[in-house]
């Protein structure tokens, strides 16, 4: 399971990430904003994959590639942390 390491606000075009004292870190556009929303609500990886594939209108393989890249980037930027096994 993933959890956010930063604060965020929902905006019209996606989600904006912030760090207290630093301000805005970056904006997360769609379709990845849907992944962020699922993650903060505790979706498991399979459910996040389905949501991303739906919103991006890609097949499951492409969705899996996009999700892995997205989560990897966020983890590398210390925007999220893994705190348990994914279902």
């Amino acid at each position, binding site marked *: 399971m993933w959890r956010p390491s930063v604060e965020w606000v929902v905006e019209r075009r996606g989600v904006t990430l912030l760090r207290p004292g630093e301000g805005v870190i970056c904006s997360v556009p769609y379709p990845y904003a849907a992944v962020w*929303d699922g993650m903060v609500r505790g979706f498991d990886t399979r459910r996040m994959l389905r949501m991303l594939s739906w919103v991006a209108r890609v097949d499951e393989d492409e969705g899996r590639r996009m999700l892995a890249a997205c989560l990897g980037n966020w983890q590398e930027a210390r925007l999220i942390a893994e705190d348990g096994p994914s279902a």
Partner: protein
Amino acid sequence: MVRGRGVQALSKAGELKRRLQGRMQQRRPATGSLFQAQQFLRRERADNMHENDSQLCEPSVYAVPVAGRWLVHAPLHGGGALVNRASLELIKRGYPSWINAPEPLREVIAPLRGPAIPPPSLPDDAPCPSLLVIVPTRACNMKCVYCDFGGHEAGRALLDPERAFCVIDHVLTLLAHHGAPSLRVHFFGGEPFVAGDVTDAVVHYVRAQCGRAGIRPWLEVSTNGLFDAARAAFVGDYFDTVVLSFDGEPAFQDRNRPSPDGGGSSERVMDTIRALSATRVELCIRVCVTNENAARMEDIARFLCSSFDMDIIDFEVLAENTLSSAAGLRAPDPFEFARGFAAASRCAAARGVRVVTGAVDTLEPRHSFCPMGTDALMLMPDGNLTACYLTPDQWECHGMDLTFGKVSHGGSVALDFEKMKSVRDLVRRKPRCERCFCRWSCAGGCHVHHSPPGSPLDYDDFCAQTRLLTAWRLLEELGCRETADELLRDESAMRRLAHHVDDRICEGDAR
């Protein structure tokens, strides 16, 4: 973790509320009135106004008896006045020229002499959906005793999100063609959050595609509020308007809107209302009014206003059906509903909460009570596109066909424009409404349950309460509060207004 809500949390009040308030400000009363009347003029839409008074023989000026006087209502002029009988006769005799009207009366009728806007209607050209309704499922997680949507027994079928995406793309293309600035999307059920992932995906897709198209999304949901805190947070973050059904006080809620196991739902739903109260959404609590709770409408308003932070209370009378009858519930007495609504309105207004009911809308003229006939598209779980959110059996029994399109599994959107035009025509034909001063505000009520083709010409209970409350509201807008109260205190005055046969004062139509 602290959730941030800064960007969208600028104001508790929603865009719709601001828009409505803006319109209200445009209708501010003028001063210096006679005959205990105040008048107001609608100055907007001047470009569309008729230049010739003779065109007003289309019924556009009405008068109804109000506690010994007459309420003159000119919805297409945006004007009105409270006058005595002698003045009404002068208005009738002089209409439409009023050349010989005495000076004091000229002031009263000044707003009525001005040009009228054309009756509201749709042009006969290509569809421009004002609203997209998404029904992700007909299934529901409650078992309301009066619900004939199938409720807990309804099919569990879920909408394929891909079908919704295709309709969204289609509608955005139409809106771009018409230069429309926003897309309003309303989620309906069953309970839409029973199909939570489908609803989530459609919400995200609407936002994503609107962002690309430069069109502003406006997201609404009708819900029973029976969900957890995480879902409430999602709703608060992503929706603009929430219509939440809650029958006003826990005792009514638990009896009439139980969980499928028969247990009460009030505690969990009130948790949801509290959670949503703390968000930026425009929150509307929808209360079903029956013979049981009509006498407590003021108490209900007081309870809701003191318990929650909401924007609107919507009182709607029970639509009777076999299930509600089996539960011993009936629609309320129309006079009792009118009195209760007025008392609840005053009580809530003192706390900054607006009280509404669907048929009483005096903000601006409309030609349809609901989205039907406005080219709104309603996507059902099976991919059908309809003009009405009711289940097909409810309109088919009146010989109506309100399905005008289909989204295939493959994603193509097929719209039958000829059938859309026939639905436009359907809402125009309301023989019972032609002589009623609520013609351009109530506009006939529900086109399926209240005024389907072939419905009686006599006013029924729904008409009676609508006529009373519309008059009451117009009097309040005119600043004639004492007269408004007097009307609802006097049963014979209420009866006279409710059943006044013909309100038109147009030359040749005067009664």
